[in-house]
Each structure stands twice: as structure tokens, then as C-alpha cells.
């Protein structure tokens, strides 16, 4: 590659990076400015007198509708909803993938195809029937109801992930384990689980992002006390007492996005590795 073309490549990459990072910069900069500075200064200028006041307000005292306790309670709501929903849907997906690939039964392909259809059903379609179902089983307006909805909706994806990962595991491995005397769950725990690390990471990142960022299910199925942070953020931004506090809005938005950002940074390299990992040789 010539020097000129290399320079062109870098120029394009840097431009693309700037374009992507600019909004984040504006958010971070604005969240650290006082309201006066926001009114007087430029949008992209760095804060002259940085202050964490907007962050504290967004976390613990900003008004979301009639409540003025900041995002804190809703952040915990989101965690309480997301963590069990991610773990349960991932675990069931792993079991499904195991059964669909290693214990084929009559109609297992049909079942898998039916599950796949679940990936293409838009959220809006299931709102009404799901509301009826939650009402009937008595889970309306609760975190448990949200967990249930996210587990059900996530199963199609988690099953797909694990099924595609396990399908490359040779049948002989199962046969050898059965001859050795291992049963259904022994094979799952002692032979498959130890080699499933990469796909667990992929699945957990995917599910965590989906469930944490979900707004629609949260706004429809949550009660006043069980709203996730995405709903609270919306309420916070739309609630104003005279002055629009852009700095608090920006800080709140960043707070709401931090956990997914954190998960990506911690597990990001495994994500790519897991997506490209295929056959298990050996």
C-alpha cells in the first residue's frame, strides 16, 4: 500500500470515528456544564467550570413525573429485572440448544423452525395477548411480569445462539459419554457447559442489551413502582418545572446507558470471539 492510500484510509477512519463520537462528546460535555454555561456557550465546547451537580440531581433528586427521587430507584428496578431475565433466558436457551442438537426427536426440526419465527415477531404484536396472559397469571404491574415477558421473548434468540453453537459438536461425543454412563444432565453440565464459554458471553451480552434497553415492554407492563430505567428516563426528560435542564437530561441518559457500555467493554472481545467460534475440535 502506498503512503497516500494509507493516509486516505486513516482519514476516512478518523472522520467516521469523529462522526460517531461527536454526540457522545456533546452529551458528556453538556452533562458537566451548569445551565448558565449551556445557555451562553457553544454546544461542542468543553465545560469551563465542570460540575457534577447535574449527575447527582439525575441520580437522586430529579423529577420523573410526580416522584422526585432521580433515576436511582429505577436503576435498581432495571437491574432486578435484567439480571434474572438474562440468566433464565440464557440457561433455558442453552438447554433448548442442547436438546435440539444432541437429543433429536421426531419434530425437533419443526419445533426449531417455529422457535425461529419468534425472532421475527415485532414487540407490538404481542402486547395485547401478553397483557391478557400476565393478568390471568397475576403478574401484571410487577417486576416478575417483566422478567417473564423478557424470558419468553428472548428464548427464540438464545435458543438460536446455542443451537447453532452446539450443532457443530460431534454426535460421537454424546455416544462416548453415554457409554461412559453419563445421563442427560451429566452430559450437559460436565461436557457441554465447560466448552460453552464463548456462546454464553455472546448470549448474555445480547440479552442484557436487549432487555436493559427495552422501553416498550417496560412502559406497557410495568407498574408505577416497577418501571425500568428507560421509562424513567423518558419521564425525566419530559417532566420540566419551567426550565429545561439539558445538563440533567444528558447525565440521566448517560447513566441509563452505562451498564450496557460496561458489559461491552468488559466482555466485548469475547463477544467477537464467540461470534466467530465454530466447531469444537478435540
Amino acid at each position, binding site marked *: 500500500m502506498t503512503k497516500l492510500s494509507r493516509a486516505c484510509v486513516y482519514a476516512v477512519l478518523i472522520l467516521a470515528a469523529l462522526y460517531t463520537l461527536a454526540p457522545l462528546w456533546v452529551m458528556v460535555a453538556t452533562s458537566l456544564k451548569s445551565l448558565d454555561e449551556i445557555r451562553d456557550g457553544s454546544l461542542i465546547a468543553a465545560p469551563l467550570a465542570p460540575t457534577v451537580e447535574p449527575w447527582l440531581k439525575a441520580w437522586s433528586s430529579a423529577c420523573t413525573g410526580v416522584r422526585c427521587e432521580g433515576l436511582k430507584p429505577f436503576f435498581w428496578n432495571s437491574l432486578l429485572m435484567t439480571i434474572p431475565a438474562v440468566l433464565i433466558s440464557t440457561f433455558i436457551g442453552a438447554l433448548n440448544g442442547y436438546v435440539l442438537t444432541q437429543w433429536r426427536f421426531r419434530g425437533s426440526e419443526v419445533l426449531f423452525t417455529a422457535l425461529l419465527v419468534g425472532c421475527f415477531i415485532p414487540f407490538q404484536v404481542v402486547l395485547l395477548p401478553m397483557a391478557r396472559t400476565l393478568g390471568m397469571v397475576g403478574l401484571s404491574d410487577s417486576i416478575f411480569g417483566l422478567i417473564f415477558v423478557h424470558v419468553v421473548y428472548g428464548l427464540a434468540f438464545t435458543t438460536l445462539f446455542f443451537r447453532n453453537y452446539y450443532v457443530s459438536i460431534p454426535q460421537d461425543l454424546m455416544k462416548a459419554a*453415554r457409554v461412559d454412563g453419563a445421563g442427560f444432565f451429566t452430559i450437559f453440565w460436565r461436557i457441554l457447559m465447560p466448552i460453552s464459554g464463548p456462546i454464553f458471553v455472546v448470549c448474555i451480552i445480547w440479552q442484557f442489551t436487549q432487555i436493559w434497553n427495552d422501553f416498550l415492554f417496560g412502559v406497557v407492563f410495568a407498574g408505577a413502582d416497577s418501571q425500568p430505567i428507560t421509562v424513567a428516563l423518558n419521564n425525566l426528560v419530559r417532566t420540566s418545572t419551567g426550565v429545561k435542564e439539558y445538563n440533567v437530561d444528558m447525565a440521566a441518559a448517560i447513566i441509563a446507558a452505562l451498564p450496557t457500555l460496561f458489559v461491552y467493554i468488559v466482555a466485548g472481545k469475547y463477544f467477537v470471539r464467540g461470534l466467530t467460534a465454530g466447531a469444537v475440535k478435540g
Partner: protein
Amino acid sequence: MANLSIKNIRKTYPNGVEVLKGINLEINDGEFLILVGGSGCGKSTLLNMIAGLETVSEGEIQIGGKRVNDLPPKDRDIAMVFQSYALYPSMSVRENIAFGLSLRKVPKSEQDATIARVAKLLQIEPLLDRRPAQLSGGQRQRVAMGRALAREPQLFLFDEPLSNLDAKLRVEMRAEIKRLHKRLGITTVYVTHDQVEAMTLGDKIAVMKEGVIQQFGTPDDIYSKPSNTFVATFMGSPPMNLIPAVVESRNGAGFARIAGDENSPPISVPLLISSNAIAVYANRSVLLGLRPEQVSDNERPGVSVAVDLPVAMTEVTGADAMVFTSLGGVEIVCRTQPRSVAGTDRVRLHIDASHALVFDESTGLRVV
């Protein structure tokens, strides 16, 4: 130690396909049985049924005189070695060998003793703490055999264990398996599609095709007295030549007359067959079975019949040269010495029909 008895086994899949159509086999304690056949002949299915990995549709399997049809694999006292080795990827070699032992709640000290014993037997002691991914193909195969040996089974099952190895290693491991069997004397069932493995390893060979056993016998029986044209051409490399011929009776002696074609003259070769067979097959079309070594440059005065044939192609394998030519309108292969065919386009070959076989043209069954 146990004998194995398979009685009228059938396997039908839910979609109605019948892959095994009444299999009967009987081997004694300590014998080495080979199941050999092409792809899809049902040999692996039969092995899986012996192992308990597939259900039996009909018939009975007995190991050591005990019906095992409804026993799960772990209760059949068997061990199995797979084509893909099937080592547990997340476990070390030691853990792979110990896995079955620990599931059967063998005490730890006994497990260690067993691991030490099989590791010594197979010379895999330096590998015990490695993962399967860190082993070569041959080492993996040894570990897989070690894992099977650790069980001290009554019956050893091998499912094409050498197919994934390169040619040199395959020969080495073949000898190793034979040595182990000689030493331990465990009854063994071994599935392969490789007829050299079948001939060299087996005490008994069952040649299978489309779910039916074509012939069950000793390697010598299978080679010298194949029951039909399938077995005749499947076992032996290069395969037996089957040449259309007509049986003739002259003063009570039998001859096979091979028609000429554009390259070769018509010839008659003497047959050593019973007068009954001559009477039955006189003037009928048959297939004359000649091994490549029975059409060679080796003249046996008074026995062999000489013929000049065009050389279509030769393959020199080192000690021998395989000559591809045609006789009686079909392609045949002959085994000669390399110097006999060097640079010639016609070659003088001698047909020694004293051990030739005769097959019925319509049924393919051996007549003589």
C-alpha cells in the same frame, strides 16, 4: 470376557426405511469380529445397537449369554472407540480416562491405579495432563483406546477408529490394536470400510451390503471362497476380475470359453470343477472370477493358458505392476512384475485358472 450372539436383528426407522434386514452373528469369547461393507450398509448401525445407542426393532442381542436389548449402554459392560475419537474437549487426558470410572463411583485410589495401568500399556504417560486439543491424531486415538480399556469391558467396540489417521499411522495403529487384542484377549467388534484392516485384524469377518450379511467367515474363507460376486469384488485389492464365459464340457473335463473381442482372441481355460457342476452349467453363461495374481506373467506349464493382451495402462506399486487391459469384453487388472511391462503396449499373460471361481451370471452366487 464374553461371547456375543446376535439373533435375527432388524432395524426399521420411523420413516419406514429398513437398514438391517435380519442379521445373525455368533462369535466366541476372545474373538475379533470385523463388520465390513460400503457406506450405508448398516455396519455402524449394527455396532450402535450392540452398544445400546440405538434401539433394536426386532431380534435379540446377547452379551455373555445375557439378553441386553433393553439395557442402557452403561450396563452392558462394553467400551467403545469412535472414528472422531470423541474425547471430552474440556478435560485432560487423565480426566477423560477417569470420567467413566468416577461416574461408576470407583474409589479414587483404584481410579489412579487404572489410569496408571492403561497409560503404561499405551505409552501415553507423558500426555496425561494435556488437553485433547494439544494432541496429534495418533495420540488422540491412543487416549481414546485408553479410555475404553480403563473400563475393563467384556466387549470392545470400534467404529472405524483408524479412518482419520494418515496412511503410515494407520498401519502402525492397526498393528497396535492387533497386539493389544492378542495380549488382552477381549472379545471385539470392529467396524471398517477398509478391506485391508478387515483381512489383517479379524478372526471372523462379516461382509455387509444393504442391511444383509453377504458372508460370515474367516478371512481365508472370505478371500478364497467368496459366496457371491459382491464379496469377491469387495475383498481384495485390486478387486477380483469377473469375466463373462461359457462353460464347456469336453470328455468330462470342464472349460470356460471366453469370447474374443477386437483386442484379444477367444480362449478356453480349464476349470477344476465337479462333474455335477459341469453337467448343470454346461453351455451356460457364467462369470469367471480371477484374482489379479491369477492373470500374470508367471507361466505354469500344463496349467496356465497364455494370451497376448493390449496394455491400456500400468500402475507400478513397487514390487508389482498392475496392468489394466481387457479380456472377453470387460476391463481386467493383472498383477505382474514391473520389468515384464516396461514400455510395451502388448503383453503376454498367463491365465492360471486352477483356483478360479465360477459365479452364476444371473444370481451372482458362487457355483464353484
